[in-house]
């Protein structure tokens, strides 16, 4: 057995990693994470429960807070679901069909990623306001978008758009086309092939995209704050309520809401994770 020139191996049964830098990189990573993430985040929980569980519960179950939480999570859910549906169509069209400007449109799908949320916010508001390009037309159809919860859904739709499309595209590209042809030889028509053969394979990435869009939408602030009416109990999102309480120096209240958001998000993510695991096991089977 060769003796290395470096320090003796204290654990003869564990192979010493040949590549250096483990301690340095992992140490630095953990330090950075602790300073920037763990310690600050823990402050929310400590401050949130500091005044006592009872106080926490009082704040969180207040009518205004509940309304804002319902709005934030509800709008995010609807927007994510809409994104799942339209995102599937967009990903399908981008993967399977050819049409002019396809490459540019494909690149543009990432726009919500790259565009600052405030810019998106004012642009969408102006677009869907009663006198806006689209808002005016929709108003004549009896649909009011800006300054209503529907506006919030529209903003979250914009924000979450790339998540579903970008998770579906690689999955669609990897589909085994021979399997689709097999279905055709067995007599299935286009819809049957899609519903029975293609869609089952797409559930895992679809759920992933949905989860990502949902998580992003729940906490979204910048793009929503302009298009929402921001009226308490009606169109006030939870992040805005946090800021309002902060401005009133109600730290306890602000942190309570923050904790509630984090906990609910965490639980929902666990649920979606479980759903994904099930879908992967059921349909993945490579």
């Amino acid at each position, binding site marked *: 057995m060769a003796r290395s020139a470096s320090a003796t191996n204290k654990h003869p049964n564990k192979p010493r990693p040949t590549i250096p830098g483990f301690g340095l990189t992992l140490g630095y990573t953990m330090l950075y994470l602790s300073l920037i993430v763990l310690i600050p985040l823990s*402050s929310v929980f400590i401050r949130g429960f500091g005044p006592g569980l009872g106080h926490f519960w009082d704040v969180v179950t207040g009518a205004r807070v509940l309304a804002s939480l319902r709005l934030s999570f509800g709008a995010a859910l609807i927007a994510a679901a809409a994104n799942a549906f339209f995102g599937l169509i967009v990903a399908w069209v981008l993967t399977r069909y050819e049409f002019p400007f396809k490459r540019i449109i494909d690149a543009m799908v990432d726009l919500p990623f790259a565009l600052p949320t405030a810019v998106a916010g004012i642009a969408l508001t102006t677009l869907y306001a009663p006198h806006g390009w689209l808002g005016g037309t929709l108003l004549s159809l009896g649909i009011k978008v800006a300054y209503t919860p529907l506006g919030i859904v529209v903003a979250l739709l914009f924000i979450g758009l790339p998540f579903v499309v970008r998770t579906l595209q690689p999955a669609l590209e990897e589909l085994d086309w021979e399997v689709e042809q097999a279905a055709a030889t067995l007599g299935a028509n286009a819809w049957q092939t899609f519903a029975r053969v293609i869609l089952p394979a797409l559930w895992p990435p679809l759920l992933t995209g949905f989860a990502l869009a949902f998580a992003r939408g729940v906490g979204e602030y910048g793009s929503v704050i302009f298009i929402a009416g921001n009226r308490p109990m009606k169109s006030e999102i939870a992040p805005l309520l946090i800021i309002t309480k902060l401005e009133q120096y109600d730290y306890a209240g602000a942190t309570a809401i923050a904790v509630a958001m984090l906990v609910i998000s965490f639980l929902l993510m666990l649920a979606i994770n479980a759903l994904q695991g099930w879908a992967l096991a059921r349909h993945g089977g490579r």
Partner: protein
Amino acid sequence: MSSRLGRLLLIALALVFLAMFLVLPLIIVFVEALSKGFGAYLAAVSDPLALAAVQLTLLVAAITVPLNMIFGIAAAWAIAKFDFRGKSALITLIDLPFAVSPVIAGLIFILVFGGNGWFGGWLQAHGVHVVFAVPGIVLATIFVTFPFVARELIPVMQAQGKDDEETALSLGADGWQTFWRVTLPNIRWGLLYGVLLCNARAMGEFGAVSVVSGHVRGLTNTMPLHVEILYNEYNVAAAFSVASLLALLALLTLAAKSLLESRAPELRRRAHQSRDLARRERV
């Protein structure tokens, strides 16, 4: 597979959807920016307060991006080249900022560094301003944007494995030499890609910065905050003028992204799959 009509219908539906939610918002930024004429546009973007905002935005990005880049490289190195318990927990931890609302991201720094915060007393006693000042903005921006570089690099480095580094070591190179001469050239496209995304987000961050900044004009307003102020004052054209600069930045980012993806196709959509990566590692 489907009929021609069905195909056209789907394409039309997709395009209409994208137009309503993607293209039109982008167009309206520029239309509104120029709605009062080019002169007004120039006045808006060269206004001293606007320039101060641009300066601050650039400063924050200049600090944030390199720091996050170093973190990203370190984290990716640790994760890709070694096996250790808790690796998937670490990856999930890195993804954390994506699950946290930007407002909460700002809130936590107020809780730690604010007047009422853990270090508040100490900071005030020493005349150090963190929240409602530039350092606070930098911290909040770092929190929100640090995953970007890491998430790009981790899959890239995992895909490349350890072979090249082990070869270099066997030929006598030490750790740093290996990193500079072997690893870095290998990951340069992924690194550039991550830096690009990190920068775009850093310059555009709104929610977190809004909470910690204090909105002091000329001092603690970044470009997105400045846009908000102008808009709330009903100075719509000016707001969109400044916003158009950010929109141009976004378009530049997209173009650079496309270019990088054509150079290194494996970067495509890598960022969105690292969650699956974490999951597969658990399984």
